[in-house]
């Protein structure tokens, strides 16, 4: 980070943003009067999946595309597999395949939410936003709250063990294939997981209580922190129930009025489009009918709780009702409410895992199905961080992918994270003579609430702009590039 004074104006840079996945950078321009002039959250990484996946076989997509992200590879793996289900004409999976995938997905959500809350965000919540740098991390939590930290580690481990049992590996497994799954869950695997599952639900509830006690202990401050009204988008089951694996897309405005509902994946382009801004490699999606000024929206745990009508597991449903009562049943629009909603989903995932482990369909042997082949497959899933959309088209002669479009969770939250940066800067940096490290962490706290996964969001490739030389370890010029 750096503060650069020039003509009374200041440019504040936070680079890199830490305790988030991937690379991001914040720039804030303050004017002569110490007011926020411009505040931006830049995504500074590049991949190029849309283009380099072209020419690959369609069935490679679930395995290659999950390498976008090592925190939630399961989401990309399953979303890619769901798109290829459409391509192979598997309109309804066998019960074993559907439930194995759901188990993998809830295991993923459980580990990812535990990771975010305990390993990445809890240092801010437990020690304070302006706590000393050396303390403000998971090692600090281990030192001061060893019991919480130990449970956190074992909770994440439990989610990872589910992923391993359903996909073969903890990171970048291969369980889902077009039209189904390549293994069921053995009795032995089931029993190992079931032994700990009850405890994992208990600990998830403890984590939720911890989160609630922090939020309620400072309710007015935290509800206002980095907050603003927005639209909300998420998948729900057709009857309005929360469903993280599959369903129809629903959008509500900040007061809870329905903008659209019952939208099917194949029609996504009629509802969601993306704008490009020259200062970020991440695009800016918005609801097509509302346009870019008014159509931006939030996704992820808080919008999912806002969009659904109910949750079909008892503990999480009770907790949903309590969260919604904070705003009298209307959508909650507070950035920090993401943490609360995320912990409700942690509980919900544990409840779903128990339900699934008790289901004998997981030991079924009918694993794959198919039907009439198609050349276009679009699918979505609620990844831990929000709605994830994969769209592939292929050459029917060769089975090679000819078009790929990915709108990932963190990309949907691009405009909201930029708003959060601006609002926190206005709330906490304006008028401050000295911008301390602790104050700058406030900005990152606002971004972290969205649990951004910046590697996911940087599948798009940017333009190279200037001359650059890459000089090798021995001093030779390896690469020289000019503005294209």
């Amino acid at each position, binding site marked *: *980070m750096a503060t650069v004074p020039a003509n009374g104006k200041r440019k504040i840079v936070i*680079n*890199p943003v*830490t*305790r988030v*996945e*991937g*690379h991001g*950078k914040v720039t804030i321009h303050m004017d002569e009067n110490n007011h926020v002039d411009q505040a*931006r959250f830049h*995504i*500074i*990484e590049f*991949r*190029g999946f*849309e*283009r*380099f996946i072209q020419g690959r076989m369609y069935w490679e997509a679930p395995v*290659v595309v999950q*390498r976008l*992200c*090592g*925190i939630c*590879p399961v989401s990309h793996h399953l979303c890619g597999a769901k798109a290829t289900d459409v391509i192979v004409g598997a309109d309804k999976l066998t019960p074993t395949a559907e439930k194995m995938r759901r188990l993998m997905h809830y295991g993923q959500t459980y580990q990812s939410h535990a990771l975010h809350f305990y*390993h990445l965000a809890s240092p801010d919540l437990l020690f304070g936003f302006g706590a000393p*740098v050396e303390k*403000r991390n*998971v090692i600090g939590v281990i030192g001061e709250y*060893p019991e919480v930290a130990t449970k956190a*580690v*074992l909770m994440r*481990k439990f989610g990872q063990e589910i992923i391993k049992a359903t996909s073969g590996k*903890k*990171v970048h497994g291969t369980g889902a294939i077009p039209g189904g799954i390549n293994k069921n869950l053995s009795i032995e695997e089931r029993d190992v997981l079931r032994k700990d599952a009850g405890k994992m639900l208990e600990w998830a509830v403890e984590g939720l209580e911890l989160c609630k006690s922090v939020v309620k202990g400072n309710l007015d401050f935290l509800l206002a922190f980095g907050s603003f009204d927005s639209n909300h988008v998420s998948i729900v089951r057709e009857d309005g129930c929360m469903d993280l694996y599959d369903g129809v897309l629903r959008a509500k405005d900040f007061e809870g009025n329905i903008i659209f509902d019952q939208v099917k994946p194949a029609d*996504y382009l009629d509802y*969601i489009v*993306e*704008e*490009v*801004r*020259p*200062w*970020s*490699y991440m*695009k800016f999606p918005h609801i097509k009918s509302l346009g870019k000024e008014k159509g931006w929206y939030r996704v992820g745990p808080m919008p999912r709780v806002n969009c659904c009508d109910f949750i079909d597991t008892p503990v999480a449903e009770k907790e949903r009702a309590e969260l919604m009562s904070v705003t009298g049943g209307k959508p909650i629009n507070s950035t920090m409410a993401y943490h609360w909603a995320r912990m409700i989903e942690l509980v919900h995932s544990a409840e779903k895992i128990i339900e699934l482990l008790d289901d004998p369909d997981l030991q079924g042997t009918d694993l794959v199905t198919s039907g009439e082949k198609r050349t276009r497959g679009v699918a979505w899933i609620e990844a831990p961080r929000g709605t994830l959309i994969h769209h592939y088209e292929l050459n029917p002669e060769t089975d090679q992918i000819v078009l790929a*479009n990915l709108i990932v969770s963190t990309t949907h939250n691009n405009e909201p994270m930029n708003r959060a940066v601006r609002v926190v800067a206005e709330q906490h940096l304006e008028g401050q003579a000295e911008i301390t490290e602790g104050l700058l*962490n406030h900005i990152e706290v606002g971004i972290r609430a969205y649990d951004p996964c910046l590697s996911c969001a940087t*599948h*798009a*490739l940017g*333009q*190279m*702009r200037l001359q*650059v030389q*890459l000089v090798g*370890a021995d001093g030779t010029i*390896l*690469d020289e*590039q000019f503005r*294209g």
Partner: protein
Amino acid sequence: MAKPLLATAAFTGCFGCHMSLLDIDDRILKLVELVEFDKSPINDIKTFSRPVDVGLLEGGISNDENVEQLRLFRENCKILISVGQCAITGGVPAMRNTVPLKECFEEAYLRGPSVVDGVLPNDPDIPILLDKVYPCHEVVKIDYFLPGCPPSADTLWAALTALLTGKDMGLPYELIKYD
């Protein structure tokens, strides 16, 4: 004696190698007995302020900022380890090396089916892209390589504890995997 210092970096990768490091699970409690973490994306130490013993590098090198950071790691760390396929070969991101850059960004920002009013990002606040994704050892000298996508938690644990306790890092066959 002060604990050795450990720094980690995530360049052009997916963070999966960092996840695999966390997959050592409760052994992380032992790890913090053995080392002190310095600059890393999992804490808020954003710059080097003292010499570090071991640097773990995840990801390949795809832009000017990666190059600058990797050089800083070389200057500040006694031992550098390339962790995972991206750091060692460029990995999946290096699949773009076969496609002209212009085609990649036009696909993403102009031709993508959900793009409206496409434009090519070019602000000075975002890094300059290299034409190819490079493995770390083509930019600086690297001391050790741990393959895998990602290397398993057991592989990382065995390598790190050997290094930190001054033992030979001879890893058994079962711990060397390339997927």
